[in-house]
């Protein structure tokens, strides 16, 4: 399926995956994250259940220290 991750088009296997699965596939191992699907904040307890489907716009913000 085709989705956008951080404004980049991505082709992924299957037609659905959870946020946790996406993080694994993309090797996003970072701890501090903010994730939105189609503009909506996904809270951490929902990472294993929140589903990503064809055409979804996913934003993964990796928080790093500094400021």
């Amino acid at each position, binding site marked *: 399926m085709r989705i956008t991750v951080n*404004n980049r088009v991505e082709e992924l296997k299957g037609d659905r995956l959870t946020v946790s699965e996406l993080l694994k596939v993309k090797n996003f191992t970072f701890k*501090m994250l903010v994730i939105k699907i189609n503009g909506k*904040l996904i809270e951490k307890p929902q990472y294993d259940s929140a589903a990503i489907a064809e055409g979804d716009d996913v934003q993964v*913000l990796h928080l*790093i220290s*500094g*400021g």
Partner: protein
Amino acid sequence: MTFDQIKSILSTKTVGIAGCGGLGSNCAVALARVGVGRLIIADFDSVSEGNLNRQYFFRDQIGLLKTQALKENIRRIDSSVMVEALAMKLTKGNIPAVFSSCDVVVEAFDRAGEKEMLIETMLRFFPGKPLVVGLGMAGWGKSELIHLRKSDNLYICGDELSEVSEELPPLAPRVGMVANMQANVVLEILLSITNYELRIKN
């Protein structure tokens, strides 16, 4: 738009700034200079010598609360800018009340955990309120890596890559670039909202 027109629009706006360190102090000063009417600044910390290599404070302010020192610096630039100085630790419990009256909020925290907390809280309570985040500004050089990424009402300024450390400290030039980019994004938001409002009125 002339500067007078810009100033008359900005004077009616309120911007919240979470954190008065490298990002917050420089961003606040830029916004004060162009005439934002009201700034809500929050930080629990005090000015120390190590801050002077990037934060908008002066040597004779060491020991003062950052909110106090920054408010004074802004007063010296333009005393008509209203500054609400909150010397407090922002938490998910108080953030909604602190920033509810803001047209835009600037995220200027230092630690990743705090940044995460603020962004999530703002998205949870005010998903429609523009939030301008500073992310990745350590070291020197590599100016071309600093960018702006927009996602609905979330604006990310920085290189999203360089984490501060002993070997990669935050320094005035690069921190200033990101802080001023944040201020520039705030202007873009405030001036374009008003253009839209003016257009639908007519």
